[in-house]
């Protein structure tokens, strides 16, 4: 599985940690439930801390809890489940989340451009997919009509 960050394939230092599994050294991504239970201890560790939320998370409910973390991973259980786009936009636009916003799960090339526009900057591309090819997705459009988390101005403010 390749990780893409800021339009490039990168070495990934983050580790996903399952509930019930001891947190290893380094940068870890835990579930929201675990963050709620062990937040203090987790924050006291040496490595960076990230959280993984499901597509059913409501941004308004979790925003304050997660906005200071280094990373929020939003799960796409199926890529046709588009709730993650709204979660991302609201974390970026409303909660001013500045850490890494990472798409995980059924993440495919043809969603990357939309994800990028909604504020994602990192993507765990689904296993077995051509990562080099996927990078082209960021270049496919040079014009957009609406504002997004990448640029809030609609085209009518840029025309």
């Amino acid at each position: 599985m390749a990780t893409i960050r800021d339009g490039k394939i990168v070495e990934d230092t983050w580790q996903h940690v399952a509930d019930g599994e001891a947190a290893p050294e380094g940068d870890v991504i835990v579930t929201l439930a675990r963050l709620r239970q062990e937040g203090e201890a987790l924050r006291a560790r040496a490595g960076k801390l990230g959280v993984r939320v499901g597509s059913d998370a409501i941004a308004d409910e979790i925003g304050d809890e997660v906005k200071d973390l280094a990373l929020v991973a939003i799960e796409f259980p199926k890529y046709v489940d588009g709730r993650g786009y709204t979660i991302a936009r609201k974390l970026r636009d409303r909660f001013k989340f500045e850490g890494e916003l990472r798409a995980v799960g059924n993440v495919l090339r043809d969603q990357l451009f939309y994800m990028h526009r909604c504020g994602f900057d990192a993507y765990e591309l689904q296993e077995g997919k051509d990562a080099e090819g996927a990078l082209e997705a960021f270049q496919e459009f040079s014009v957009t009509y609406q504002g997004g988390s990448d640029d809030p101005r609609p085209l009518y403010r840029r025309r």
Partner: protein
Amino acid sequence: MYQYDQYDQRIVEERSRQFRGQVQRRLSGEILEDEFKPLRLQNGLYMQLHAYMLRVAVPYGLLSSTQMRKLAHIARTYDKGYGHLTTRQNMQFNWPTLEGVANILDELASVQMHAVQTSGNCIRNTTSDQFAGVTRDELEDPRPYAEIIRQWSTFHPEFAFLPRKFKIAVNATPDDDRAAVYFHDIGVKLVENGAGERGFEVLAGGGLGRTPHIGQTVRKFLPKEHLLSYLESILRVYNQFGRRDNKFKARIKILVNALGIEEFSRRVEEEWEQIKDGDMLLPEEEIERVKKHFAPHAYETLPDSDSELAALALDKDRAFGNWVKNNVRPHKVPGYASVTISVKDKEIPPGDLSDYQMDQVADLADRYSFGEMRITHTQNLVLADVKVSQLRELHEKLVAVNLGNANANHIADMITCPGLDFCNLANARSIPIGMRIIDRFDDIDYMNDIGDVNLKISGCINACGHHHVGNIGILGIDKQGVEHYQLMLGGSAGNDASLGQIVGPAFTQDEIVGAVDTVLQRYLKERESADETFIHCYRRVGMAPFKEALYGDN
């Protein structure tokens, strides 16, 4: 009409390139159908029973003659020489190959067209009144707002994977709704408030399908500059809270009804408070920029023609007179009229146009109607700006290409979905039933006697043929492997929106045409006068007389 600038043009060209790449990945086997399906669906490409089907977007139904000639060329070169008009004012082609579609998109982009979001769980083509800009009964032309919505919704990054498809319609006529705004996921009505300011009433939660609902008002008056932020707020609430566990309960109407309109509106307003004064505010200059594209044509100054039009309807050439009476309506500019070209004929599936006819209509539009035409949601065409003095020669030329039928707004002027002849979802055929009905009522005097009535036929409960809102609706069902048809009465898609009710047990395909006739014969007996249309008569007398006529006393 709206003309692309460099930005709009770049978007359709880049889209075409992107889709060609997706097609290549599918043909090479890099991606399989599971992964390709949602990609092709975002581009109006369906898999039907016999072939792919490509739906081309025609924003709010408006086409130039150049675009129509391009569609004719596409029909000839990449399909079987015809196209089909749809209820979202689009045109679809039933037989393209996958590689052909990649080429079709390039062809379309060369005339400022595309197939973006004509299917899939995203925001679909925004529709409007087919007489927008020329009708006397509108507050102002709704098309600039439909175009603004089109741009906002095109490749909207947040709303490409909604729970289900999403349809928006805009109208600006207080009394006569031809855009069916009450049956859309969002209906946008241009209105005036008490202070005489223009804005929008915003409706949500209307729709047909398995569980039809009439849209409810989310906000009574929305100032124009907030149009897009308000739409965005509704979509956001829907994207977060719409059901995704059951595709039959995933439309926004289910959410609106589950929450109740008050709670739904509260959530929308709460969302809107957060974004309403941001970058989405629509500047007056942008509205003006888009409006300029819809400026009135260079009409000649002509004397008032209302009485002349009335006289022409009584012309001694009855074919022409009936056509004027049924297919021609007054224009807001003296000396002009708007013509509905009926694409309903017993020899062809309702809404089908051959490449030859497309070329001919394009020529007629150039000659008689400023080079523009419109597709209606009732699967017809409109030439909106014809001089009354030229109606007779236009009619002759339409008759010569089999497009001169005088049946607009009458029983033969139906909506039919493609049904089981083409569609993967259908339970029964629609088109042959429609053609039989057109044939049965192929007598202009009988049709005129029956008067204004609309018939809508769907081949399954997904209701693409809008059967719920037909004055007479027909729903195809599968009864132990045999096509059957339920008859519904009393629906209306207009301002007097109502849902039809099933009369009784379903009919076979051999019975259904006669059943429609039986209903209409009964109407002729029941009506108080020739001025009482079928729907008004039905509302007065109710279901009972019709039920009795169809099924007898039991």
